[in-house]
């Protein structure tokens, strides 16, 4: 279990080097309107736009695909669940697997759901893949006026995440050495898992407390206004990126309404 938290993109690509707050904001502005509708057209259009701008983020497609594995898995999960349990079996019958009738209606609902997941998650994945966590924390404090206590504190905690993987391995091995294993018993497996997870949590809390004390000892709680060793600038292109994201999202929703696809999630 290794967590790769480093950016996987070319940092000089025109959109990758935009201000992290602008990138995060643009991703939010672009995806939030998509949540309002359950039609297949809006996410399809959004996904098309996302794939078009992808090259400007300098993301290597192979690496992006690896990061998106959980997404592919959940898509497969949706496919299976919908084929088995979808209540709405309208449309033309395509084929039947025993009692399960697969119709065009089922397929289009499933397709729309999968498209939605991809369209909404992809911008987030791309933004975090192209953003250094330190830069994001800096920009949150300097450009979005987030409290340093929160942003820098989260950043420090983030640095400890890879340690959790090593810790988990050590805890599991130690349990085996003590004669504790679950064999094939699923209940014992679950209990072993939860006791290991609890020990991991206890260890993480203790480490967190020590880190917090060390940070305060270096004046993190001094109350003096912090200065910034690294500057993050929010410039016109950053504002334009936000604007473009909002306008594109609006255009997609408008088109969806005009073309009669729009299907609001409420009502």
């Amino acid at each position, binding site marked *: 279990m290794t967590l790769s938290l480093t950016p996987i993109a070319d940092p000089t690509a025109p959109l990758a080097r935009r201000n992290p707050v602008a990138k995060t904001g643009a991703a939010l502005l672009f995806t939030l309107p998509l949540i309002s509708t359950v039609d297949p057209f809006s996410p399809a259009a959004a996904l098309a736009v996302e794939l078009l701008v992808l090259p400007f983020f300098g993301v290597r497609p192979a690496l992006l695909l690896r990061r998106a594995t959980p997404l592919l898995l959940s898509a497969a999960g949706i496919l299976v669940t919908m084929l088995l349990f979808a209540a709405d079996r309208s449309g033309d019958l395509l084929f039947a697997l025993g009692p399960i009738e697969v119709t065009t209606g089922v397929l289009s609902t499933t397709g729309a759901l999968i498209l939605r997941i991809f369209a909404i998650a992809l911008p987030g994945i791309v933004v975090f893949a192209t953003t250094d966590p330190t830069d994001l924390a800096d920009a949150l404090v300097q450009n979005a006026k987030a409290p340093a206590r929160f942003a820098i504190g989260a*950043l420090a905690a983030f640095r400890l995440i890879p*340690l959790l993987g090593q810790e988990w391995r050590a805890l599991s*091995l130690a349990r085996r*050495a003590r*004669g504790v*294993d679950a064999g094939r018993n699923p209940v014992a497996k679950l209990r072993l898992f939860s006791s290991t997870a609890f*020990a991991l949590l206890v260890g993480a809390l203790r480490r967190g407390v020590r880190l917090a004390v060390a940070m305060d000892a270096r004046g993190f709680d*001094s109350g003096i206004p912090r*200065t*910034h060793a690294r500057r993050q600038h929010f410039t016109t292109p950053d504002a334009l990126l936000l604007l473009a994201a909002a306008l594109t999202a609006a255009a997609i929703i408008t088109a969806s309404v005009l073309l009669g696809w729009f299907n609001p999630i409420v009502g």
Partner: protein
Amino acid sequence: MSDVRLRGFGWRHAGRRAWAVRGLDLDIRHGERVLLLGPSGAGKSTLLGALAGLLPEDSGESEGTIEIDGLDPRKARDRVGIVFQDPQTQLVMARSGDDVAFGLENRGIPAADIWPRVSDVLDRVGFPYPINRPTAALSGGEAQRLALAGVLALRPGLLLLDEPTANLDPPGADLIRSAVARALDPTTTLIIVEHRVAEVLSLVDRVVVLEPGGGVRADGDPEMIFTAYGDKLAAEGVWVPGFDFPTVPSSRSTTDLLVRAEQAAVATRLAPVSIHAAAGEIVAVTGPNGAGKSTLALLLGGLLAPTSGRITAFDDKRPPHRWRAATLAARIGSVFQNPEHQFVTGRVADELALGPRRIGRSPAEITRIVDDLLQRLRLDRLAEANPYTLSGGEARRLSVATALATAPRLLVLDEPTFGQDRRTWSELADLLAALRDEGHGIIAVTHDETFVRTLADRTFPLGVPAPAPLPRRSRP
């Protein structure tokens, strides 16, 4: 640059009956370098915490006065810097330079002054990498050096070091010692807590010994203190120079072969190794960091599968890593470097009963085993305590006891004496020597030279493997 003045100072942590420190009168003048000694439990770390202003008023009860340059330490925080034991929980940022800058930002130093101060202090502590070096890529000693730089960048008048080398191997400890020696300003007041006296003796000109019940037992020139109090301090667990241990040779010849590794290797972590251990001997595995010592301990402990080569043990056709956990625990006991990883329950007595129960001992036998081990490892008064609340030495003794509870014939220990005070050390050494003479085989991964000299019947040095070629990258 700072003066410290204590008058009848005492501190009791909230919810505790005993005072951590009490009745302390002490003056430390500007520029003095003081080694603070005392048996464990004498309140050394509490005193450092109080001086660093890190004991909030509502976290306990205080008496007397404690002042830094005439100020309450909580109001003099900008004059004091403190370095703790564990480098991992002192670094905040992902890049080395940013980490040093972190404290300067907190103190509101203008951005233009930050980077010159960062490079200046990194030079002073002898940090060998560029400022964008990822902190995750640093060794323990290097990380601790960086933590020291982060504190020195704030130009403290009083520098407090709380066992700064306890978590480090000897080369790492050397790095810290030399960094303190070269980076310290002659006007900076220094207070070190460290029970390995030889490590820091060259840095100090005064020794203060705290009395566990309260007050100061001795105070003065290091040579004078160690002549007058050396034997008592050594008996209480301080590593006083000149008090060595006699060698404890094996009293019997080795018998059956317990474990044998043939060209066993783990990809990227351990080059092929052939090693064996028999009943009645202590084998010390030594070698620098990165040689794969801990990986070898996991292999021999049946906790990891070799990616090539073979491991056989106890005349079993199946390799140890394929055994059921209960079988493994009955044959091989593993003691990990970090004792806390080993604890599974919430009570010391339950912790000891766990192994015997897993391998199917009767309740009567379990009670006997638990009582026996509690006695033998001086844990009887702690039977009801939570393992996570034990001191370092107690936790280490418990972790060894848990491995012994299933009476395995082979013991595999990873750095068993790491960071222990002299008293715990000698108890462990006596115990391991006795186990060997009872016919146990013991493999200990260690960089403790005293351990090797005193106990090892054979030494197996592991070398650093040749570095693997760097993976090719498609982009620069």
